[in-house]
């Protein structure tokens, strides 16, 4: 990487070694000006809260600000581990997010392989346009949609279930159906959008590979298995590792909006609990500790998954 030399008084090699942030500042001040707003915004809204994480180890003292309270060490973490909510929260969070990952992860892969096999261009385009669409529906509207469609006595899916003889199942107000409804609706909404990245990877497959597969007498199924699938395996692994970094973070909004007193035993997760005791009941230190615990577990999962895939397949995030 030899920098373009505008000032030719110094020899090129020497200059490459000597360029530092300080001595290029005059030359690049315009670049600094252009990136300044982003730096300020990210510093204030991302880094200052990180500094504020120490709240998890301190009492919150309104008069002394975010970091002025008495040091409490791991007291708030202990309080959380000992609380009667701990087991349920962990279980619910892991169940919801693991089910989501395991079931909604393969869906876009299968969909992409399917769309890729469609030969009729216009049908392909139409299908793509349709399956991307639900991704843009807001979470509030999505949950509203579930409410009206699944309502046991007035929703169309409620009617369908009744006519199939499954009776008046209240899909939204039952501890048994909360997770399935959550996960299936998640797949319905996002699997199209998530298939884009696989479709992009599939579009880079060398057409000659298809020809030679055909010459060798490969069936459609074999082509998918031995040409298409290997082409997207690296993408699959990377995305899988990334999704494992979210094992302990269910999307707050959807769970929160789908909660009601009937399904609360299975729908209370760490994120919603942090919101309730933090923002609603103002126990700032305690909820900050729970939030931090969540972040740490996520990172451990991400790190472990990454180490695992790096060993087994040489593909990793870092």
């Amino acid at each position, binding site marked *: 990487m030899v920098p373009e030399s505008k000032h030719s008084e110094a020899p090129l090699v020497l200059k490459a070694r000597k360029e530092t942030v300080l001595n290029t500042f005059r030359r690049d001040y315009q670049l600094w000006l252009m990136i300044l707003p982003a730096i300020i915004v990210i510093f204030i809204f991302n880094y200052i809260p990180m500094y504020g994480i120490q*709240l998890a180890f301190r009492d919150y003292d309104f008069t002394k600000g*975010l970091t002025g309270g008495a040091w409490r060490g791991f007291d708030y973490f202990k309080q959380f581990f000992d609380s009667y909510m701990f087991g349920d929260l962990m279980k619910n969070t892991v169940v919801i997010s693991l089910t989501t990952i395991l079931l909604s992860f393969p869906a876009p892969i299968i969909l992409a392989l*399917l769309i890729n096999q469609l030969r009729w261009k216009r049908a392909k385009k139409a299908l793509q346009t349709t399956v991307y669409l639900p991704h843009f529906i807001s979470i509030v509207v999505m949950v509203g949609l579930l*409410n009206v469609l699944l309502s046991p006595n007035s929703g169309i899916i409620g009617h369908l279930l009744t006519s199939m003889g499954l009776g008046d199942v209240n899909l*939204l107000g039952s501890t048994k159906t909360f997770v399935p409804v959550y996960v299936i609706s998640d797949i319905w909404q996002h699997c199209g959008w998530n298939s884009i990245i696989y479709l992009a990877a599939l579009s880079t497959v060398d057409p000659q590979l298809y*020809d030679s597969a055909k010459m060798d007498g490969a069936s459609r199924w074999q082509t998918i298995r031995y040409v298409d699938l290997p082409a997207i395996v690296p993408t699959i692994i990377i995305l899988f590792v990334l999704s494992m970094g979210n094992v302990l973070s269910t999307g707050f909004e959807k769970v929160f909006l789908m909660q009601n007193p*009937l399904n609360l035993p299975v729908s209370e997760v760490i994120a919603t609990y942090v919101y309730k005791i933090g923002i609603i009941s103002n126990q700032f230190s305690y909820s900050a500790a729970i939030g931090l615990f969540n972040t740490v577990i996520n990172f451990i999962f991400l790190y472990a998954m990454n180490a695992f895939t790096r060993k087994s397949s040489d593909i990793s995030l870092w």
Partner: protein
Amino acid sequence: MNPTYGKNLNDRAADAVIVLLSVLVFLIIAYPLYFVIIASVSDSTLVSTGQVTLYPKNISFFGYKEIFHDSRIWTGYKNTLIYTLLGTLVNLLFTLPAAYVLSRHEFRARRVIMFLFVVTLFFSGGLIPTYLLMKDLHLTNSMWVFILPFSVNVYNLIIARSFFEHSLPKELYEAASMDGCSHFTFFVKVALPLSKAVVSVIALYYLVAHWNDFFTGLIYIRSNDLQPLQIVLRDILLSNQVFSQGAGAGGAAGGYAQQYADQVKYAVIIVSTLPILIVYPFIQKYFEKGVMIGSVKG
């Protein structure tokens, strides 16, 4: 895709299966959306008894009329429109120049700053420290909380950066700078016009994120006059939830019987999602490009 048609029976069968599956997927995704449209303009009694399935029956615009009279929806709509337009403008104003800078190899602090930005994807202070910070900054209960915080999305920044890196040949700036062109002028007059695709995709991402933002309103806003559309939608769509089936607890639709409430809900879903559905087809062609650029490692 290889366009040669299958000759043997096996291939024909495979084609049939693929087409069948595709139709199935299409119906599963499209039907609920279609149903909401026809339900919103059909007689509510027929909808709630399950008689409206394939086409609208006894056309009625009751739901839309109700919405039209509901001032909360219009306040929410107005607020969200302001937050979305202003917010997206700020997003682009902050993100694109930064992405351009980080795409310049001669910028010495490039690696350090990129690293510090990427860290924020994996670590955050969490809800509570962020909330307390907003309070200290007096951003709670203010419209600026929708616009300034997190106005630079690092994912979008990376997409834009990769695009600038790949689509602007190095020689281009060198040539321009020979003619006395500064980075400012180069960015505005050369880089941006060459990057319409990525600018549209990122603008759409930001636009949709603002339009659908529910969290900010929930956490930081107390005053009803400032609430965005999504909060109003929550009140209408969900405030009489399943557990109060038909009891009509709260919300605009509260006084009506459940079936009327439902009709209002169908209409609300349409009205609130319409703007995005209108923008969508224009930008859809850039999606794959946008995602592909984003996935380029670097």
